[in-house]
């Protein structure tokens, strides 16, 4: 039963072949049996089963939706009313949120079951899930390896079939890179498509939530629930939400795929390059045309991002001061010490580094050279995409330069770690939708992700392109051994 997709389970639930309670129990047991992956921070069995009962009642009454009764894992970055919401930080290790994020509310209204809250990099800052206060997550394909990050727990949970589907958030690649490293499907929607209300902020102009699933079809079903205008988020876009599932099967004949030459240069692992090449071959067979495009400022995306994201983060994380909620140091002499000690003890090393970089970039005398310069580069990077999309419908390339790397191999070198997001970051800077879908394995049997980048608000096309590929291939159906 745990091998079935959202679409299949939805049918089974609606036909009463299974109950949500049974299904939920199966997943709760699997989570417990595979706790060594450390994919979850919080699992609330009672709450999950209660929701499953409600879902069953709803299904019985015939008022269910496509997601009613489906057990889903939520990244621990979404505030969940009455439930621990930690953002994988000591700062919020005891934070029971007093309200629901819009994403949580929407899944609740759809009748899905909340299995638990998944592990992640602290405050979503990291590319390996090793910055979590609750310890690293292990990659189900190879437990010596990281699952990627920051949505590493969600990625591992979906890959190991510990949840039917999960949510993630993506500021510079945090959905797509772990999706690639764990062989699942991950979609970062256009900026403004999914409400950020209640999603703990890392970098507000870049953060976006999206589905992490086994297939593009499942991603479409989740996005149908997640997307939409929210009056509580001033950056949410008031634009109708199409039924993403209804356009999955459109033929790809004549689809123009742009290949940015900059994504195939130095630093790209050979195994990855080969897999991407064969995926492109598959698209040719499906009737797509491949052409070269150029994103000349790509190489500046990482420097640009590592100014803007930390700058926004340094301000977003100023609210963690030990006054109203969260961690407060046990001992302090005065207000200054209370602040400095609470924050020094409550935040981990990577978070502190980024706060300091961001603080520096915004400080008097440096603003123009760092922050303003980065904003100008952001414009250039974004314009590159505009130009490329004049000649193509989607852009394709690798989602990550390498496959999953070993735990601890990059923790001492933040700069090396930052390069993991080299292909994903520019998409966030431009606010475009991007996906990673499974496209093969390297010689060590570690998954490889193909990235598909779309025009603004063109999620339906991305899902369609990904789905057609998945109809023709079976990479997405592969499951790591033992799961």
């Amino acid at each position, binding site marked *: 039963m745990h091998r079935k997709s959202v679409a299949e389970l939805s049918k089974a639930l609606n036909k009463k072949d299974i109950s949500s309670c049974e299904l939920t129990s199966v997943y709760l047991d699997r989570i417990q049996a595979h706790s060594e992956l450390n994919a979850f921070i919080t699992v609330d069995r009672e709450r999950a089963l209660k929701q499953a009962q409600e879902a069953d009642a709803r299904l019985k009454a015939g008022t269910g939706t496509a997601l009613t009764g489906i057990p889903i894992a939520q990244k621990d970055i979404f*505030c969940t009313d009455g439930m621990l919401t930690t953002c994988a930080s000591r700062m919020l290790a005891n934070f029971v949120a007093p309200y629901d994020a819009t994403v949580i509310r929407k899944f609740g209204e759809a009748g899905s079951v909340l299995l638990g809250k998944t592990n992640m990099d602290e405050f979503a800052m990291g590319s390996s899930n090793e910055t979590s206060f609750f310890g690293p997550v292990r990659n189900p394909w190879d437990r010596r390896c990281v699952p990627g990050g920051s949505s590493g727990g969600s990625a591992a949970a979906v890959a190991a079939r510990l949840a039917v589907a999960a949510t993630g958030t993506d500021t510079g690649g945090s959905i797509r890179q772990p999706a690639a490293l764990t062989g699942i499907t991950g979609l970062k929607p256009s900026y403004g498509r999914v409400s950020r209300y209640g999603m703990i*902020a890392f*970098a507000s102009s870049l953060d976006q939530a999206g589905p992490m699933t086994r297939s593009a079809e499942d991603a479409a079903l989740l996005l149908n629930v997640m997307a939409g205008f929210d009056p509580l988020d001033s950056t949410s876009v008031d634009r109708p939400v199409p039924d993403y599932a209804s356009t999955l099967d459109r033929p790809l004949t004549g689809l123009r795929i742009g290949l940015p030459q900059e994504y195939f240069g130095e630093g790209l692992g050979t195994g990855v390059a080969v897999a991407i090449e064969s995926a492109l071959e598959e698209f040719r067979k499906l009737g797509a045309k491949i052409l070269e495009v150029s994103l000349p400022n790509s190489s500046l995306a990482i420097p640009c991002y590592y100014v803007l994201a930390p700058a926004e983060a340094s301000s977003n994380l100023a*609210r963690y*001061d030990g006054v*109203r909620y969260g961690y407060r140091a046990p001992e302090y002499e005065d207000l200054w010490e209370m602040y400095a000690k609470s924050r020094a003890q409550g935040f981990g090393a990577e978070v502190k580094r980024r706060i300091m970089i961001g603080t520096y970039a915004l400080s008097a005398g440096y603003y123009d050279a760092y922050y303003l310069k980065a904003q100008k580069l952001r414009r250039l990077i974004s314009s590159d995409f505009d130009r490329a999309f004049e000649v193509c419908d989607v852009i394709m390339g690798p989602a990550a330069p390498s496959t999953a790397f070993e735990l601890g191999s990059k923790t001492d070198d933040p700069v090396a770690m930052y390069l993991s997001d080299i292909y994903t970051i520019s998409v966030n800077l431009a606010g475009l939708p991007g996906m990673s879908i499974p496209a093969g394995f390297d010689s060590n049997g570690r998954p490889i992700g193909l990235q598909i980048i779309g025009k603004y608000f063109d999620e339906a096309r991305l899902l369609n392109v990904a789905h057609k590929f998945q109809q023709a291939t079976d990479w997405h159906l592969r499951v790591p051994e033992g799961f």
Partner: protein
Amino acid sequence: MDWETVIGLEVHVQLLTNSKLFSGSSTRFGAEPNTQACAVDIALPGVLPVMNRDAARMAVKFGLAVGATINRRSIFARKNYFYPDLPKGYQISQYELPVVQLGRLAIEVDGVHKEIGITRAHLEEDAGKSLHEDFRGLTGIDLNRAGTPLLEIVSEPDLRSAREAVAYLKKLHVLVRYLGICDGNMQEGSFRCDANVSVRPRGQHAFGTRAEIKNVNSFRFVEKAIDYEVGRQIELIEGGGKVVQETRQYDSVRNETRSMRSKEEAHDYRYFPDPDLLPLQLDPGFIEETATDMPELPDAKRERFTREYGLTVYDAEVLTGSRDMADYYEDAVRAVPGQPKLTANWVIGEFSGYLNRDNVEVSGAPVTSDMLAGLVQRIADSTISGKIAKEIFEAMWDGEGDADAVIDKRGLRQITDKSAIEQVIDEVLTRNPKQLEQYRAGQDKLFGFFVGQVMKATQGKANPAQVNDALRKKLDGNRT
């Protein structure tokens, strides 16, 4: 040496919205601590700001009133600093591009007219309050005020004396209340002022180093604080010292300003555009709509009052001191046409006097404009004398009903019956033969004595003019 004072003012005007600038919490004053502080106000993780439309409207109103440029596009920025009453660790404000720029306000001091430049007015959120008492050495934080919309109005350094500063502040105070964008309550902190003060040798072009006096909360204290600070700076410089740029606090008990020695190094607020908020874009429709909704402004109203009602500039000034007062006056004038001057006298005299005595607002006065008009009507048609009218006004204020009701109940109707008055005069003359004799002997000033006696005998109800006439006839007609 001859010194010149240079003052620029920053006024924080709390906008009269129902809800906060970026959240749906109430802005009502005086609630139990933290009961009007929602998830957004206390900056829970994940919450986001959504901007209040009326706050934007009020800012535009102010901009239009001071002839300023309304920026069609303005930017909200984060001003970053740590303080326990600042929940997000930053204040949402406007920095590089404020909503209002380059306006002016005319003031008058000792008959001299002067235009004061307004550099900018920007929208920002207020912080909470720190309460320092009662917690065994701890500070208590109340976030009810956090997020309340403020319009910060920054003047050019155009003011040259404490009196000019106060004139500007009073003018601004009247204006914001006219516009209905602020209740002007200085005790509750709805209208707060910071003053940048410096001195320079007269004739010197460059400004001296300024000190900022924080949060002075009455017009009187603003004047005293500036005067003290000017004296301090001059004394300091003349004694060979130097003014340092710093923030100072005014102590009204000792009447002095003191340096606020902060542990914090020079502030580095790290302003940057708030990524949670897009640019505030005001379309021409929004601005036009606001413009049509503008009330008549104090200067225009004053001018009209002198023209339309024939009032003196002074009377018009007093009556237009607040919109409520002006409206009250005009309502009364409309109810008793043809008596604008008499009505003005009563509004400025008795009515204002009672408001002050009982410390009530125009809106809460027991004598409505219709009631006052009724009273004026009875004076005008000679039903009562002006003196009796004061008694009636007091009775109306005390809730005894309108003028006619009081007149009837107390029998205060003026005696205008000629024969009745003559009869009283005869009685008075008979009762005072001695005075009559003296008058006839040439002591003319005793005329007033007889008038008084007649009025006394009629309990003030006799028509004074008629008494005069009749008395004159009786006394002088018989004079030999």
